[in-house]
Every structure is written in structure tokens, then in C-alpha cells.
């Protein structure tokens, strides 16, 4: 027994590599679909949107470019679908020039899978230059900043925008980003106009944002692939409950399941490595 344990502390690295390769590949081919329990910060965002009265407006700012796509894009898609499923009107915009095309694709997906209609179920405003000026401007009058939407329709003639003037008429702003833009939203929209703000960010930048959660400046936060997967899972569940048969690809859930198994594998290796280490130490 002890010899076996000692052997465990000296597994050749090639076997570790092989095990890891399988741990990350098999879940991609045979998705395990682990049930995802929401972490507290994700839950606060989800529940906020879930309990909004239908017809409320949520501003989804796609403040990211292609470099952080794998983590942030699934979040945008999931939150957007959640809004539509709940009858909340998502208003898409971006502070990054590249963001418009990326976000538009998410709206197209919502059209395809949920039959969302432009200008009645959602609004897409597109890109406007200048971070601070745009955020402050919306507090004044959204029409000043976005006189027309992305497709050139004047804001006044969009049915879904009726009665929306400034932050007072917007229930929540979510900034999707891989940088510090969510903090800019906090500084100008939260501090000046008391607008509720949430963040959806990459895992790397999330570490800098935890203090804002503690002080309540963010309603909640979706962090990294994990946050994306948790939200995506919940939204897919709503879709299934509603009897929608054709579901969009579960990118984040799939990636996260593979990732979780990979993490567990490393942890397992650490444990058996230490068992073997103890066994060999006791022999001496």
C-alpha cells in the first residue's frame, strides 16, 4: 500500500499531460452539463433583472473588443436573452467602436432563437465616441447622445423607447468589459445620477472590481468564464421551461465544464502527490 502511495508521488509528467488533455477534451465531445449554482455576485444581477416589471429598460453597454470575446461575449448574449424572456427591454449600446458589430451579432441571435423584434422588443443604439461625455449625456437626455439608433431610426419614432428620457427611466446599466470602463460608469452614472450599475468583466480584471461590490457601487458582477457559464445556464433553463426547443450553443457552459473538470484533476493530482509524499516521509 505504502509503495503504491509513494509511486503516486512520482507519476511521470507525460501521464499528467495525457490526463489533462482527456479531462479537457472529453467534456467538449460529451457535454456533462453540470448544474450551475450561481455565485452571489451573479445572483444579484440575475435576480435584479428577473424581478423587473415587464416593459422596464436595461442598458447593456458592450464596452469590449474582440480580444476579450471568449469571456465577455457569452455574458452579453445571456443577459440579453434573459431580458427578452422576461419582457424587459434591452437597450444595446457601446463605448468601443469595435463593440457595435460584436453586440449586434448577439441581438441577431436573440432574433433567431427568441423571435425578438427590433424597436419593439429591443433597441440597438450602436456606438458613440467619448466615454465620460456619453455617460453624462445619457443622464441628461439620451436623445442628445443618440439622436438616432444604429440603423438610423430617430429615437423618437422607436416604440420601445417611448417614455425613456434619461437614467430615471432605466432600471439598470450593465457594462460588459475587459478593462476599467465599468468604473467610469460608476463614477459618472452612479455617483452623479444614482443609476444602478452592474459589471460583466473578464476574470483578470474582476480582481480589481471586488472592492466596488463590497461598497455596493456595483449591484453585482459577472466575472470571467465562470460568471458567463452560470448566467448562460440559468437562461437556458428558463428557455427550456418555456418549452423552446431550439437552443443556441452553450459556449460558456461547455468551456466552463471542461475547465471545472480540469481544475478538479489538478486538485486530485495535488492530493495524491501529497499522500505519496507523506508515505515516503514516514518510511524515513
Amino acid at each position, binding site marked *: 500500500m505504502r509503495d503504491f502511495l509513494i509511486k503516486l508521488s512520482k507519476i511521470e509528467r507525460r501521464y499528467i499531460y495525457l490526463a489533462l488533455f482527456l479531462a479537457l477534451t472529453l467534456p467538449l465531445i460529451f457535454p456533462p452539463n453540470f448544474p450551475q449554482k450561481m455565485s452571489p455576485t451573479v445572483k444579484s444581477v440575475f435576480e435584479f433583472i428577473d424581478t423587473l416589471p415587464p416593459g422596464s429598460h436595461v442598458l447593456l453597454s458592450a464596452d469590449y473588443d474582440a480580444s476579450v470575446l471568449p469571456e465577455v461575449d457569452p455574458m452579453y448574449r445571456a443577459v440579453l436573452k434573459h431580458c427578452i424572456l422576461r419582457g424587459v427591454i434591452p437597450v444595446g449600446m457601446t463605448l468601443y467602436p469595435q463593440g457595435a458589430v460584436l453586440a449586434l451579432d448577439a441581438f441577431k441571435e436573440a432574433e433567431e432563437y427568441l423571435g425578438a423584434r427590433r424597436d419593439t422588443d429591443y433597441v440597438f443604439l450602436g456606438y458613440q465616441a467619448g466615454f465620460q461625455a456619453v455617460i*453624462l449625456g445619457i443622464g441628461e*437626455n439620451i436623445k*442628445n447622445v443618440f439622436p438616432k439608433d444604429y440603423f438610423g431610426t430617430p429615437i423618437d419614432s422607436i416604440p420601445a423607447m417611448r417614455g425613456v428620457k434619461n437614467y430615471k427611466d432605466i432600471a439598470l446599466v450593465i457594462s460588459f468589459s475587459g478593462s476599467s470602463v465599468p468604473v467610469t460608469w460608476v463614477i459618472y452614472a452612479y455617483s452623479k445620477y444614482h443609476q444602478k450599475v452592474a459589471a460583466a468583466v473578464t476574470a483578470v480584471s474582476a480582481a480589481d472590481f471586488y472592492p466596488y461590490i463590497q461598497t455596493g457601487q456595483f449591484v453585482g458582477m459577472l466575472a470571467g468564464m465562470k460568471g458567463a457559464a452560470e448566467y448562460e445556464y440559468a437562461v437556458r433553463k428558463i428557455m427550456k421551461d418555456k418549452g423552446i426547443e431550439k437552443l443556441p450553443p452553450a459556449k460558456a457552459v461547455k468551456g466552463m465544464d471542461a475547465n471545472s473538470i480540469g481544475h478538479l484533476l489538478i486538485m486530485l493530482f495535488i492530493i495524491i502527490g501529497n499522500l505519496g509524499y507523506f508515505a515516503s516521509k514516514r518510511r524515513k
Partner: protein
Amino acid sequence: MIWIYLIINLLGNAPPRVFDVPNDGGNALMLEWQLPPDSLGKVDSMLILRKTLPEGKVDTITKVFINHPEFVDEGVNYKKAYQYSILYFIGPVQIHSEWSPPTKPVASWIDTRKIPLFILMILYTTILLVYIFTARKGRELYLRPIAGLEAVDEAVGRATEMGRPIVYVPGLSSISDVATIAALNILAHITKKAGEYETKIIVPVRDPVVYTVAREVVREAYYTIGRPDLFDPGQVYFATDSQFGYAAHVSALMTREKSATNFFMGMFWAESLILAETGASTGAIQVAGTDAVTQLPFFVVTCDYTLIGEELYAASAYLSKEPLLTASIKGQDQMKLLIMVVMILLSLLSVFGVNITLGLF
């Protein structure tokens, strides 16, 4: 378009107040205004007009937000003067304010907000110079021993015992990176040490300028110990400037040459673990040193010894046995002490309700 500006001028509307924005290059003016009295109706929107003097050219600058009664015009030049006027739209009526008196933006020669930082810089320079002059006078300065140093020499010794080469990676950054400078200092020491035992040292480099300097450092080191014959122009070379191309190359190098000792000193990014873990898999002794906080965990886990952050700079001072470098470590220490005192003092003051902002931007 001109006719828009020719509108009934009601009751002599006050012009906007114009201020120079201080501490800039004379490229901004700030405007403040008061909305016309409510009796005239609610303002729907407004435009700011700017007249550039001496030409007298009028531009419409921007649409602004009504309830935010200030605006910074960043499109001005310190060589010219400007007048401003505001055009209010109230229903079908347009109201034109008077022109503000001509204002010239001022280009400042010093940014007063940065003065505290400047003082701090002078202070630090002085502390450093004081120590450096003390050292020049030949006074011995005490520094505590650091554990990693013996590790460096032991690692060189081991390569000698095994009769296998040393691989020295001077980081992936450029010559203006402090870590690279420290790495080159350490390279000089290690080359001398290795040269005494005729142990081969291979230095693949990623940055072209660092390559030329590293080559000179190695040549010079052999020359100092009286063995210029040991220098082989092929032992220091530019590998490639692609981060992962370099990582792939050095991984292969360590595996093929079966190096007994690997040094990773300088600035590293994500490739750190590729290098260190491949090196570990060949059973080599490894000593790392970097000030890249994000990569330190990986070196600490995979290397036999790691110089953490400042220890890298300190090691370069110790090993080069240059009293002036030791003096500067001493100067850094005193500055560190000062920072700690400031932190504690300001925190204590805050306990008693006095919150001092450092006034540093």
C-alpha cells in the same frame, strides 16, 4: 446657415463666462453659463458658438447638455484669442446671447499640480546621491545577506561538476527595463565564475539591443578574468523577437543541450512557466529573479531559488561588488522607510478624523 445667427436678441442675454483651464498647454478654455429665465419658456437645446480672433471666423462647437452648465473647449490654441456666445432654442424661438469678451488661453510653463511629485523626485535623488557620495568616500555600507546569492554560485558550481552548460535568459524586455540592466550585471558575474572553470554559458536573447549589450558583457567578462579565448561568438545570439517563438526555442535549447543550470533573470511575461517548467523537467538547477509580480508565483513554484522583486536589483549590486550600486540600494531603503512613515502617520491622523490628501495626481 448664416441667417440662423441673425435672430431677435431678447433682453440682452448675458454672455457665457470664460476661464482659462490652468496647468495645461493653452489648449482649453472653460465656459459657464446661466440659462435664460424660465419666463421665456423651457430651453430645448443649445449650441455654443466660438469666434476666433483675429480672423473673426465663427464655428459651431458642439451641442451640450442643458443641466450641466459648463463645457470645456479643448480645440483652442494659446496663440489666439476667443469669444463665445450661446444659442438657446426655446420652442420655435432662438435666443442668442451676447459675445463674451475675448479670452486668450494660457500655456503654462509648469503644472502646479505636479509640484509635490517634483519635490518627491528631488528628495529621492538627493537621498540617493548622499549615499553614493558616502560610498565614494570609501565608507563601508551594511546590507543584510540575501539567501539567493549563494544559490547563484552553487548553481554555477553544479554545472561545472556535471560538465554541462549553463543557459542564461536575460529576460524578454528591452534595455531600458531596469530588470534587464540588473540581469546583465548578474550575467557579468556568472560569466566570470563560469569562465574560471571553463563551463560553457549560452545566452539566447529576444531583444536586438539587449543582444548587442549582452555580447559585450560576456566578452568583457572573459577578458577581465584573462580568458578572452573562451569567448565564442555563437554563445550569445539573437533568437527571435516573437515571445512564444523565443519560449519554444529556449525550451528546445534546454532540452537538447541538457543544461545543468538555468538562470531566468529579468523581465518575463506569460512564457515564464513554459521556460521554468521545461527546465525543471530536464532536472536542471534553476535560479530565477524577476520584478514581474504576475510571473513570480510560477518561478517560486518551479525554480530552486527565486529572487523576488527588489531582491533582483539587490543581487545585482551584491554580485557586481560595486560600492555605488550598494549605495543606491541603501538609498532605496531610506525612501522605503519614509514611505512607511508617511503611511502610518497619515493613517493615524485619519483615526482622529484628519484626512489629508497627498495632493499628488
